[in-house]
């Protein structure tokens, strides 16, 4: 991290810039399996797991990621990539918050580099990053063996402290001044990432993050 470097804006994605979360993406792919039986099986399976996902996310984002991405086990790489454009047009693009383009445009206007850090899968957000004019992004990557997902995520898994670590390394590499930089997130799980920049902003925050933001006099923004 450089003291006199340029500034950047680091964004979480789901819940911060868009209203969807990882489950929406999984649901989309579950509905696009080969054959009716597979589609029904995956869709019902995803629905049934929702409470479990919710509980694990409350407990720990890292545990959630480990459990959640197992649901992709057996998905074909071709199919995942093939439907990614449709995913963007049908699910992700309509879910972009009204204030998102304005916020990004405002950051660009003052010369900030726009960077997204997300727990989503890389191939699902490529189009959106292009659409939003994001300069750099980092996302989770599924492991594929013989063209099929194993359900494991390649390290580093983007969540909580890993995001903060990635930002530090990125800032060092790109001469980014963290004191002048902004971080935006909706979730208390991103507290490490919010804590290392000079301008943390809670966006559409959950209750715990809102309380934390109030205690620390951070800006609280509603992009919905």
């Amino acid at each position, binding site marked *: 991290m450089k003291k006199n470097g340029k500034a950047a804006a680091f964004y979480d994605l789901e819940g911060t810039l868009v209203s969807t979360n990882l489950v929406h993406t999984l649901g989309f792919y579950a509905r696009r399996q080969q054959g009716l039986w597979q589609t029904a099986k995956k869709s019902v399976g995803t629905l049934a797991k929702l409470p479990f996902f919710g509980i694990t996310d409350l407990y720990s984002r890292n545990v959630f990621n480990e459990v959640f991405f197992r649901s992709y086990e057996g998905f074909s790489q071709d199919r995942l990539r093939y439907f990614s454009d449709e995913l963007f047009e049908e699910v992700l693009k309509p879910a972009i918050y009204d204030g998102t383009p*304005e916020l990004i445009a405002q950051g660009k206007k003052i010369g900030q580099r726009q960077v997204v850090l997300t727990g989503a899968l890389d191939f699902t957000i490529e189009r959106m990053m292009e659409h939003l004019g994001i300069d750099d992004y980092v996302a989770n990557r599924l492991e594929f063996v013989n063209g099929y997902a194993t359900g494991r995520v390649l390290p580093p898994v983007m969540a909580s402290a890993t995001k903060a670590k990635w930002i530090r390394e990125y800032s060092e590499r790109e001469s980014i001044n963290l004191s002048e930089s902004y971080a935006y997130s909706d979730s208390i799980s991103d507290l490490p990432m919010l804590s290392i920049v000079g301008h943390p902003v809670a966006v559409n925050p959950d209750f715990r993050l809102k309380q934390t933001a109030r205690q620390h006099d951070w800006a609280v923004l509603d992009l919905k």
Partner: protein
Amino acid sequence: MALQLRRKTHESIVYIDKDSAPRIMPNGEDFILEDIPIGTRVIYPNPPIKGLPNREAAIRYAVNHPLEMDPLYALLEPGMRVTIAMDDISLPLPPMATPDMRQTMLEVVLDMCGANGVDDIHLIVANSLHRKMTDWEMRRMVGNEIFNEYHPDRFYNHDAEDDDNLVTLGHTKHNEPLRVNKRAIESDLLIYLNINLVPMDGGHKSVAVGLCDYESLRAHHEPQTIRDSHSYMDPPASELNHKVIRLGHLVDEQCKVFHIETALNNKMFPEGYYILTRNEDEFSFGDRMKWEAMKRTFSNLPRAARRKLLHAIPAQYELIGCFAGKTEPVHERILELNYRQYEIPVKGQCDIMITGIPDISPYNVYSALNPLLVQVMALGYHFNMYRNMPLLRKGGVMIITHPCFDEFDHNFHPSYIEFFHRLLPESRDAFYLREKYEREFASNPAYVEMYRRGNAYHGAHPFFMWYWGENGRQHVGKVIAAGAENAHVPEILGWDRADNLTEAIAMARSFMGRNAEITMLHQPVIGLCNVTE
């Protein structure tokens, strides 16, 4: 103190003697009763001028008999584009009992527009860089019927950051830029509905400031202009006013503006609260009981509840005059009425000025009076309530009563928090702060979006609040915050603190000498001192 000063010079001026009752003073959301030293001159507001019996008729008469313009009905043609802009939540203070004056003006104007076949009408709140009004506030301001018909598509807040809906009008001959609301300026007719609470309101300020953007505002909301404004309340002596007039002429060159201005009396409180504005020596037994009851109620409530209670009491303002037509002649006539209501002739300056800071300011309607706003009220407003010469002698001491709590509203004043806790400890120099940080705050993406999408004051607004106290800061020798509940807020503001008023007066006397002349502004109502030697 000279004996001639002791003579009763005006009904609003009272001198404290050994039989005088203690005085009621605002202290944030509370009121305190204080013994004031013998010889202190206490300045009360003038009694309210009797309101006009039928305000709708007065407004209708004004628009039909305008100054230096054709009557409104003669300016309206079927199919034309009309924009009606109006003052925001900062006027009047506190918000008045419904129906608000703007509602009555709108009913008259919209009725006339309808009768003349004009239906392309937009209503815009001229909030400039103030916070946008909430839907509830907008509804309360114009009434259900108008709100339901026009909101949100044709009744909305001005957005000073919406590049697509702003248009550049050019520069004045002094190179002040002006970019204003596009819809308003490109309309065939712009009608402005104003409530002129104090002499610094209204006139060209309404359009040229109320509907402009940040770059336009920073040309005159800056430390040197404020230093050169010898009372905002005395327009000819205000450099700020001169700049605004130049900008107003730029507006007039490119847009037809029909100005409707109203002047109100100073009936700030309902009947039950009138004791707060009266001479305590004349209290009846009933008045004393009322005060005791009020004091007990307030002292038993937590601060937030007291604030809620105070903000729930609507002002009982009455219309004392309405004029319409060309901006300048209209404003001139309204200023005459303002001065008739507020002006108090005062002979001689004082060495120590005491003023209680109430929980009322243009910037904290329905929220807390944070430390920066306490500063604005003290050095920006109360200090500037004069004409000719300041009430306080150069180098004198200003004593304020306020708890100076370190509390900010996160939704309305987010950038104030950073300004107060990050910038002021580094420097209190207004020029330095403007140079180094103002643009950073103004372009902070989070603050911009909180202003645009939420109800936050613009990121640059705390700077303007600091500049607003600049001429007061240059003039006073010392400010003492009596009753401040902490040490750090007065310290950050560059003030001294005292536990109570008695201690503050002793401190002030040790600074100014034992024979220092003391004057107390009896708050919380508006009075304007016309100070002469």
